[in-house]
C-alpha cells in the first residue's frame, strides 16, 4: 500500500489545524496518510489544544515540537528530515484539500512518469483563493511553456507548496529550504526545482482541488520586498536569461505587491515610499496602471 506523508507546519492555529486534518480524513484516495506536524513553538495553551486535536485524529500522526519559534523555513526543513514514506504532500495549518485532490494528483503523477521518465516530478493543481470574509476565486496552474519564467511572473504558475504531491525523492533531491528567507521560500524552492531539471505537472482538469484562506493582514510588506530581492540576486543567473524589460517588470511587480501589503496594514508612509520606488522602476507602467 502506498503511503503519503502530509507535512504540516503549525504555529498558534489549532482551529486551522483541525480544519486541515478534517480535509485529509475526507480524501477519497484509497491509500494511507501519515500526518507529520511540526509545531513551531506555539503558546502552551494553543499547543495543548493542537495536541488534543491530533490525538483525536484517526490515523498515524507524528508531532514534532520545537521549544522556540524557528520560523517557517526551518520548520519546513525539520519536516523534510522526517519524511518516512514514498510520497509527500504539504499542507499548511488552516488550508484545506477538497476530497478528490490526492487521487487526481496520483493519476497525474503516474501519467507523467512515462512522459518524463528520467525527471523528478511535482504534481500541482488548481485551487481556490479565498479572502477572509470574501468570495472564493479559482486560480488555474498552467504548467505549459517555460516554467521558470511562469514562476517568476507568478501569474500562470504560482509557487505554493501546499498544492503539491510528489515522490519523497523529488523533494530530498532538491535539498533544504533557504533558511535566510522568512517569506517567499516557496518561490525560491520552486525556482530551484524548475531550473535544475525538475518537471511540474498539473492535474489537467480546471476544477480547484484545494483552498487557500488568504489575508494580507499582518504581512510585512518591507520584509516581502527584501525577500524578493534576496531571491532575485540569488537567482541572478536565471533572471539574466530574460530580457531587461522582463526584469524591470518583475521589480515593479514586487514594489506594487509590497505596497498592497503595506496598504492593508495601514502603513501609509511606507506605502507611499514603495509606490515611489515602483514609479522609478517603471514610470510608464505606473502611470498607466489603471
Amino acid at each position, binding site marked *: 500500500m502506498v503511503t503519503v506523508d502530509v507535512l504540516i507546519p503549525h504555529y498558534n492555529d489549532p482551529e486551522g489545524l483541525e480544519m486541515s486534518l478534517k480535509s485529509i480524513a475526507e480524501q477519497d484516495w484509497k491509500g494511507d496518510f501519515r500526518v507529520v506536524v511540526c509545531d513551531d513553538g506555539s503558546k502552551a495553551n494553543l499547543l495543548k489544544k493542537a495536541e488534543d486535536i491530533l490525538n483525536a485524529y484517526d490515523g498515524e500522526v507524528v508531532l514534532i515540537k520545537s521549544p522556540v519559534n524557528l520560523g517557517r523555513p526551518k520548520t519546513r526543513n525539520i519536516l523534510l528530515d522526517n519524511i518516512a514514506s514514498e510520497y509527500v504532500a504539504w499542507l499548511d495549518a488552516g488550508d484545506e484539500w477538497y476530497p478528490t485532490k490526492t487521487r487526481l494528483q496520483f493519476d497525474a503523477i503516474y501519467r507523467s512518469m512515462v512522459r518524463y521518465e*528520467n*525527471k*523528478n516530478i511535482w504534481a500541482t493543481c488548481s485551487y481556490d483563493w479565498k479572502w477572509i470574509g470574501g468570495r472564493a476565486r479559482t486560480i488555474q496552474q498552467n504548467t505549459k511553456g517555460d516554467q521558470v519564467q511562469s514562476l517568476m511572473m507568478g501569474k500562470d504558475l504560482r509557487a505554493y507548496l501546499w498544492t503539491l504531491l510528489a515522490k519523497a*525523492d523529488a523533494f530530498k*533531491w532538491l*535539498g533544504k529550504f533557504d533558511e535566510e528567507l522568512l517569506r517567499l521560500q516557496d518561490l525560491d524552492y520552486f525556482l*530551484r526545482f524548475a*531550473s*535544475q*531539471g525538475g518537471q511540474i505537472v498539473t492535474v489537467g482538469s480546471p476544477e480547484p482541488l484545494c483552498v487557500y484562506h488568504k489575508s494580507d493582514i499582518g504581512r510585512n510588506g518591507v520584509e516581502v520586498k527584501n525577500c524578493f530581492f534576496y531571491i532575485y*540576486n*540569488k*537567482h*541572478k*543567473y536565471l533572471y*539574466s*536569461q*530574460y*530580457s*531587461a524589460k522582463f526584469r524591470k517588470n518583475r521589480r515593479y511587480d514586487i514594489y506594487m505587491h509590497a505596497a498592497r501589503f503595506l496598504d492593508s496594514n495601514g502603513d501609509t508612509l511606507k506605502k507611499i515610499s514603495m509606490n515611489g520606488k515602483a514609479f522609478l522602476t517603471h514610470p510608464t507602467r505606473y502611470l498607466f496602471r489603471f
Partner: protein
Amino acid sequence: MVGKHIVLVIRLLSDRSGGAEKLYIEMANYLVEQGFRVTCLYYEPGQKEPFYKLDNRVSLTNLFIPYPSLGLFAKMNRLLSHALGERSIMPAFAWLNSELPFTLQLKHFFKRMKVDLVLSYLPPANTPSLIAAKMTKTKIIVTNHNVPEKDYEDIKRWSPNPIDRFLRLYLLRYASKVHVLFEHFGSWFPESLQSKIVAIPNYVPDDYFSLESKSIATKKIIGVGRLAAVKNYETLVEAWAVISKEFPDWSVEIYGTGPDEEKLRSLIKERDVTDSFFLMGHTSNVMEKYDESLIFCHTAIHEGFGLSVAEALARDLPVIAYKDCEGVNQFVVDDENGLLIERGSTADSMAVALKQMISDDEMRKRLAGNAKESIRPFSETKYYQKYSQLITEVAGL
C-alpha cells in the same frame, strides 16, 4: 562529504555524443551516487536533453542568456572591423561578446549557490570557469581531454581568437589542479604549472572485462570512431584496396557516423572495395561488434585517449595503429598487444601490417592473448579511485 556541492561545467551538452560529454555525465552520476550534491551547468541555445543518461538526482541547468545584454559589443565589433579592417582591436570585443555572458553567469552561480568544488570540461568551458572561480574564490579542477599541443596550440581547434588562446593557458595558474590524460602529456605544460598537474587516464567500463563473449568471431577487421578527418579512415580504405583481392573471405567494418561519410563512400566506390568494406553507421551495442571481429584497426592521426582502442583490447582484439598516434601509443605496445606502424606518405605500411596480421594466425593469437591484461590498469575502479583522491586533496571533501 555528504551534501557538499560539486559543480560540473561544460559548454555544449545537448544531444552531443562525444567522449568528453560521456565522461562528464558519468562523473556527475558517480558523484551523486557518492552522496554529493551535483549540479551540471552548460551554456547553449536550445533545450535538448543530453545524449547520455543523466541520473535524475543531478541538477541540470542551462545558463544561456537568450537576450544578450552585450549586443552592444557585437555591434561595436562589426563597426570596428569595417572601419579598421581585420587587424583591429576586434578580438577583444569578439572575446567579450562570446565569453563574458557565460563567465558572468558562472560567477553569479558560484557566488550564490555555495559551491564547494568546480570540475570543468574542455577549453570553451575552462576559461570562463577559471575566471569565475578566481572572482569568487572557488576551488576548481580543470580537465583536458586531448593532447595539450592540440588543445592549446592548434589554431584549428577551439576558438582561433588570440585572446582566447592566450587566456586558455595563462589562466591555468588559477586552477587548483590541472588534469591531463597521461603523465607524458603533463610535461608539455610550463614549469610553473607542474605542481598542479595530475594524470588520470580514461577508463574502459568494467563490463568489457567481466562479460563473457556471446558471439563467435568471424574474419572481420573492425574500426570504431567518428567519420572525421582526424580519424583518417581514407588510409584504411586505400590499404584495404591494395590487399583485399588476396583475402576474399575477409571484410572491414567501420562503426560511427560523421561529416566525412559521403567522402568515404565515394572513395570506397572508386577503389572498388564496396563488397568488402562497409560503413555501418551508429551501433548501440559496440561490445558485441568487437566480439564478432578478429582485428581492430585504428588509423587516427592523434587521440586524447583512444577509448575504442582500449575497449577493443579489453575484448581480446589485437590492434593495428600508428606509432605516432598519442593517446594510443601509451597503451598499445608493438608486438605485445598489437602492431605499431610508421606513418608514411602512403597507405603501404598499413597494408603490410594488415596482411601480416591476417595471414599470421599464430602471431594474431599471441597478441590477442596479451590484449586484455595489457589494458587492466585502465579500469573503471581505478579511474574513480584517482578522482576521489583528487577531490579529497583539493577540496577536503
